[in-house]
């Protein structure tokens, strides 16, 4: 216990916890809607597209182009480039994907899932191709793509905190509208709501969070936060409010446990360890649910 407290007192562990907890809280909250709206693959595709945007920041022709703009845009100056450019391009790529995925007409010609799947596969493949042409070695690029929570910078935490606060405020302010439009978009339209505009706003908040989180936590961990804690919570509760709360609580617990285990003498990579903790919670919830179903009714 004292060793765990000692580890938690270290600066780099505290920074990692701050960053991971921001990502965990917001993504696991929004993930409940991702799961209920049956758009889990959208979450994966948005993460992958944002990853492609981040990878493009290390693609030589893009690097040359952006640095040529450097005098006009400070974020692309060489001293800021490695931290700013991946986030900006991830954000831009996410915006394009959100604009496409939130179209209500999407799926009239081809199944919606197929379009999202093609985007996922295309973005994943292109990311590997782009990274293979990174002449300066792929370490920074891989960090930008896969995240390195234990190496998170203060500037990353600031960006995460600001983005997280904006998303949290929007989600809180428009909670009832987001629930209505997700639950019954057609009735929402008959009540005078512009369902398409509300959908776009919701996707934007999701996209913002994914784009800024990828840089810190990587695609796998962000996707895991979007899916695993919400699934665990949905197994244990039948009240939306409680599901949202439990999802956040589970993601926070898994983050604490995962980071503690990863910096302990066991020495495991942090993101996969957090994912492992979330999977364990899901399995445990499944067992609890199965056990309660077997209990004889009174």
């Amino acid at each position, binding site marked *: 216990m004292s060793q765990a407290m000692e580890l938690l007192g270290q600066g780099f562990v505290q920074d990692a916890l701050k960053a991971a907890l921001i990502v965990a809280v917001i993504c696991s909250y929004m993930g409940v809607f991702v799961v209920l709206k049956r758009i889990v693959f959208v979450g994966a595709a948005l993460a992958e597209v944002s990853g492609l945007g981040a990878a493009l920041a290390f693609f030589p022709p893009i690097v040359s182009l952006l640095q040529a703009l450097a005098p006009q845009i400070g974020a692309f100056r060489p001293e800021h480039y490695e931290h700013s450019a991946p986030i900006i391009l991830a954000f831009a790529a996410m915006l394009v994907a959100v604009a496409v995925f939130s179209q209500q007409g999407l799926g009239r010609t081809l199944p919606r899932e197929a379009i999202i799947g093609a985007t996922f596969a295309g973005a994943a493949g292109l990311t590997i191709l782009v990274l293979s042409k990174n002449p300066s070695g792929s370490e920074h690029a891989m960090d930008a793509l896969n995240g390195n929570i234990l190496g998170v910078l203060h500037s990353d935490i600031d960006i995460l905190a600001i983005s997280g606060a904006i998303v949290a405020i929007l989600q809180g302010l428009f909670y*009832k509208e987001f*629930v*209505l439009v997700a639950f019954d978009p*057609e009735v929402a*339209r008959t009540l005078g709501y512009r369902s398409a505009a509300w959908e776009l706003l919701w996707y934007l908040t999701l996209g913002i969070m994914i784009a800024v989180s990828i840089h810190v936590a990587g695609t796998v961990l962000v996707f895991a936060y979007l899916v695993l804690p919400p699934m665990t919570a949905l197994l244990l509760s039948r009240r939306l409010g409680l*599901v949202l709360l439990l999802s956040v609580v589970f993601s926070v617990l898994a983050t604490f446990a995962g980071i503690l285990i990863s910096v302990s003498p066991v020495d495991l990579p942090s993101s996969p360890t957090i994912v492992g903790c979330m999977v364990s919670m899901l399995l445990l919830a499944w067992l609890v649910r199965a056990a309660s179903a077997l209990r004889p009714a009174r």
Partner: protein
Amino acid sequence: METLIEFEHADLGYGRRSVVLRDVNLRITRGEFLGVVGPNGSGKTTLLRTFLRLLRPVSGTVRIGGSGEVRFGYVPQRETVDTLFPIPVGEIVMMGRYSRIGVLRRPGRGDHEAASRALEHVGIGHLAAASYRDLSGGQKQRALIARALATQPDVLVLDEPTNGMDLASEQGLLDLIRRLHVEDRLTVILVSHLLANVANVAHRVAIIAEGRVDEGAREEMLTTEHLSALYGMPVQVREVDGRRVIVTGTPP
């Protein structure tokens, strides 16, 4: 009588290349009960979506609301409502209040009272805390009607409300709809693929067939001659204990 909805030579559909219903002429006045009947795929949903202002006419005129705004209470087919969402019945009914509450505001005491009244009115006040997914088909339909009533609508629009119900639930629901029309003086539009559903409750009947809407008073529309001509097959309308019964086909 105040005209709430009026269609004049309206072509309805999804653009000039996908006109579903042609030259629709309809007038619905306050307090009326219109039954819209037609086989699956005939264009009932297109007509309903135009009523609800979700679709604009391809051509012609559709006027909704004469002297003021018309508020619709829409009851969708219950199969279209997602049961995966863990939302209690009371919260679903509260959704009907959202347009009155407005953006950035939370439901107040008046909204909670209105939602409770709507639930009591349809006979499921005791199910406010129950999960929607745990309800029977009839209870789900009543919950959706309560949500529509919570909007305090001028017009109640119901899309295939008795689909997949057993006889007792179906009759109970039709009785409820008739009671809402008579006691609350609600204007009702009931869309169904079953003539029998509207035969004894609607004042006016609109029958959709082959891209046309044939509309008139129930007594004119539901006659053996008219229905046989319209459907191109033997259809008999009989009265049993003062209720209309529609029989299709030739007697054995």
